[in-house]
């Protein structure tokens, strides 16, 4: 009976083993069985469309294809990539990069091509059995119809980097996800990006997709939210088309009542579409190493010595403190320069301007006047005013990487930099004409001039039009009485419209525009050419700041001025197509509004006794 016992014993043992496996531990193996055959495939969410203020498309999605490989052993992937190489034109180096990526994220599908051409897709589809792990998917592809014209504003999108993956902002983002890399694409990633969905598919042992896995429903894609921005795309494209050839620079234009950014342009520019689907390495290098820095946003990320456009800050600070009035004269008349200490501080006009009031000094941009005005305000009060007028903070625009510029905050700032004896009171002279330790962004100057244009707190410039941002005011205000502000506006209007004004040669024949020119000395080369202005002066609809780097070859040519004025004209023309030659109409009879200002000022001046000598 030993044999029967052995037989029954063996079968009882087998039965027990199966009982343990199939009954006691069945849930474990059930799970493993599902893990075995389930793959989660990310379905990218279409990004929100971006429209300009008139509904024109800034950024849209067009159909594109991605080719990715399902996870597997690195040997399998290497072999597959080698076979794919000839169809997708993958270089040895690109394959190594992909394999390294797979090594770091071994359980994620490996995106081989983000932006495959139709030819590449059909090449793969025709050879489906050779590439069982390849997944070809339709995925929305970003497209910027205005291309180069809007590059710095809109930014571009690209695959999330490893460094970004580690940041809390990108919590829950998977490798391979397309995110905004710059501009509003980056700033509004959370809004535009949407939430990708997940498809659960069943794969076989070779890794080929068999079909959707029924019991586990897909997670629906949540498309990104559309955005409307305050930009005027037509104006932006005009700005791009008339930018002085061969030059570098930037332009920003704001609506001073809402804060909408109407134009934000930096030159040289690039085609953001070239970044979609991974930028070509050679193109990337040429952009990065280009001495003209085409990737730099010259409006909000760069800062420049402001030059003469800064004189209005000195004027405002002095008038607010009561040390200056619009009719204040300075002790020394301009004879082409001012001797101070052991140095001679030049005016731009070698022959000199003679004796000037503040209004005249603004109109003619006299340095000698402002050297003395600065000294009258005093270094401490000038620095305090800069802080008061927000010159130490970024404007808070909704763009990444905004600079806060450079301006001394106090005497200690100089002490730290040059030592207590390393500097003299003469720094105030340079600061007063926008030179020296003074670097400002176009955006900052545009905001300051919008304060001059509207009074009180200026708007915070913003790209996206939304409830929260529209009309938002800065935390600082221009502490000038309305009458004095209007005096400054009148002086700025004279800059452009009165003979002798520095912008007079470039004046508009159709519109009254207030503004200030600037010639910023800089160590790199020829002076930069600035123009900051607004129009119409009494009820401004647009504030503009424009710079052309090295755009001031001599005293006769200042490239930014006609450029900036031309942009303002174009914008007002588009706003009021039915009112042509408005300026001529006004020129016939002296503007009533201006006369009104003069009267109001006279009344106000009588009330103020600032002890100023006319």
């Amino acid at each position: 009976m030993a044999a029967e016992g052995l037989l029954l014993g063996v079968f009882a043992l087998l039965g027990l083993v199966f009982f343990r496996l199939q009954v006691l531990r069945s849930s474990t193996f059930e799970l493993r069985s599902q893990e075995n055959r389930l793959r989660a495939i990310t379905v990218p969410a279409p990004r929100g469309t971006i429209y300009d203020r008139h509904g024109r498309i800034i950024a849209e999605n067009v159909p594109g294809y991605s080719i990715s490989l399902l996870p597997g052993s690195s040997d399998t992937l290497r072999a597959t990539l080698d076979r794919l190489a000839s169809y997708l034109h993958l270089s040895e180096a690109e394959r190594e990069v992909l394999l390294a990526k797979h090594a770091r994220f071994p359980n994620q599908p490996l995106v081989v091509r983000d932006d495959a051409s139709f030819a590449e897709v059909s090449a793969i589809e025709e050879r489906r059995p050779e590439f069982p792990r390849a997944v070809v998917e339709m995925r929305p592809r970003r497209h910027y119809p205005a291309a180069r014209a809007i590059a710095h504003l809109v930014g571009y999108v690209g695959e999330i980097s490893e460094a970004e993956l580690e940041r809390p902002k990108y919590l829950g983002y998977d490798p391979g996800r397309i995110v905004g890399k710059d501009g509003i694409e980056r700033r509004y990633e959370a809004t535009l990006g949407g939430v990708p969905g997940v498809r659960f598919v069943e794969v076989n042992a070779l890794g080929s997709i068999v079909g959707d896995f029924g019991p586990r429903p897909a997670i629906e894609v949540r498309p990104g939210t559309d955005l409307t921005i305050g930009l005027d795309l037509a104006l932006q494209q005009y700005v791009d088309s008339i930018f002085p050839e061969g030059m570098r620079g930037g332009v920003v234009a704001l609506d001073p009542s809402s804060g909408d950014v109407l134009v934000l342009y930096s030159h040289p520019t690039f085609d953001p579409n070239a970044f979609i689907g991974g930028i070509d390495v050679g193109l990337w290098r040429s952009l990065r190493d280009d001495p003209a820095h085409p990737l730099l946003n010259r409006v909000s990320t760069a800062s420049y010595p402001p030059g003469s456009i800064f004189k209005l800050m000195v004027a405002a600070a002095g008038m607010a403190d009561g040390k200056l009035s619009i009719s204040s004269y300075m002790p020394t008349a301009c004879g082409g320069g001012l001797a101070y200490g052991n140095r001679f501080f030049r005016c731009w006009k070698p022959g000199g301007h003679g004796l000037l009031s503040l209004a005249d000094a603004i109109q003619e941009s006299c340095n000698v006047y402002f050297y003395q005005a600065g000294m009258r305000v005093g270094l401490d009060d000038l620095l305090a005013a800069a802080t008061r007028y927000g010159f130490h903070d970024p404007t808070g625009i909704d763009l990444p990487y905004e600079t806060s510029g450079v301006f001394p905050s106090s005497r200690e700032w100089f002490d730290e930099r040059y030592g207590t004896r390393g500097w003299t009171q003469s720094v105030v002279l340079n600061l007063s004409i926008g030179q020296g330790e003074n670097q400002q962004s176009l955006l900052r100057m545009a905001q300051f001039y919008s304060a001059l244009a509207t009074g009180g707190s200026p708007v915070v410039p913003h790209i996206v039009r939304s409830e929260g941002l529209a009309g938002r005011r800065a935390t600082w205000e221009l502490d000038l009485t309305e009458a004095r502000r209007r005096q400054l506006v009148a002086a700025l209007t004279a800059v452009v419209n009165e003979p002798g004004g520095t912008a007079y040669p470039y004046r508009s024949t159709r519109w009254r525009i207030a503004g200030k020119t600037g010639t910023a000395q800089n160590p790199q080369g020829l002076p930069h050419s600035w123009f900051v202005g607004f129009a119409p002066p009494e009820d401004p609809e647009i504030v503009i700041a424009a710079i052309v780097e090295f755009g001031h070859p001599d005293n006769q040519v200042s490239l930014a001025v006609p450029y900036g004025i031309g942009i303002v004209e174009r914008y007002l023309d588009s706003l009021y197509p039915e009112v042509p030659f408005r300026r001529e109409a006004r020129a016939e009879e002296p503007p009533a509004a201006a006369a009104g200002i003069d009267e109001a000022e006279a009344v106000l001046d009588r009330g103020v006794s600032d002890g100023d000598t006319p």
Partner: protein
Amino acid sequence: MKVDWKSTLWPGGDPRVPGLALLLALLGIAMIYSAGHVEVPSVATGAWRKQLIWLGMALVAFVVVSRIPLRWLDWASVWMYAASIVLLVVVLLIGRGPNTRSWLYVGPIGMQPAEFAKLSTILLLSRTLSSYQEPIGRLSQLIRPVLIVLLPFSLVALQPDLGSSMVFGAILIAGLFWAGIPVATLFMLVSPGISLLLGFSPLVWGVWFMALAVFLYLYRPYAAEGILVLLANVAGGALTLPLWRSLAPYQQNRLIVFLDPTVDPRGAGWHLIQSKVAIGSGGWYGQGFTQGPQKRLAFLPEQHTDFIFSVVGEELGFLGVTIFLLLLVWFLHRVLAVARAAEDPFPSLVVFCLFAVWLVHVIINVGMTVGLMPITGLPLPFLSYGGSFLLMLFVGLAIVSRTSAEA
């Protein structure tokens, strides 16, 4: 003239033996049919039709062989044995196969000579053992039976086919056991084999060798025998490593993976892990006939041959596994009963050896699907796809039925 179909087709004897066999074979074809339902192109698709044809041929062979009187087989066993040795040599020279040279092709039809050799070795071993007039007591009397098995064993091991070699070992032990050899003698015979296994660890082998010496001292066999056993054990322990190195890498892998499947989950451990996942996910009632996802998505390897029982586990669950195991144990129990009931030693030995071969096939095949046994290519009787194996199964069955009828 009226033909008596019943006596022509049916040799008589216990009807449960061929009845259960036929039932198991038909259920096996159903499982092969299911094994063909996969999402990936597979040779398993359509295999059930071929197996059905093979079953038809196997039934014809059953009817033909069951007509042969047992003493004819007794007489023919020497010639059959000689023929099978020739075939084993031929297959070593011109055989084909994925890992082993175990297949011989006649046109498109392949067969494994090892299957035929198992039957002929059983016949010759039984003839030899039944010729002894007295109970075997001395090891020297075992030289002939051992040699009879050792020759085909060695030829099969050279293929190299680990599983079939183990079956030949089982044939020898089963034959000797059924011939009435004392268990202690059997133990002495098997002891060098155990030394061979333990030789990997000198310490463990040393302990084993001491225990063996104590056993021999207490049991007191002839002095020469005792010394021979001890020497054989020394040789066994010493040969372990050279023999290990002579194994094909895939065989080494299979043995290592048997001990720890997670060593190489993508390679050699894959089969075992996927088989356990398939069986484990079956639960009580299984995923449903033809529905098993592991099998369907080709995670289960060799699903219609070596791992057919994993398909049973995945699709029919513990319930199905239990039914199959009960049918198999019932069948084997009936075969054992035939061996017991046989009056002549020769048929009794043949039937018992067949019982042992089939039992070893079941244990090794079913055991490997759950990791109890190393992975070998041994098919599961009645269930695994394989023509020559099914054919030889029913030839053996015919002998069992004939024995049952003659008893």
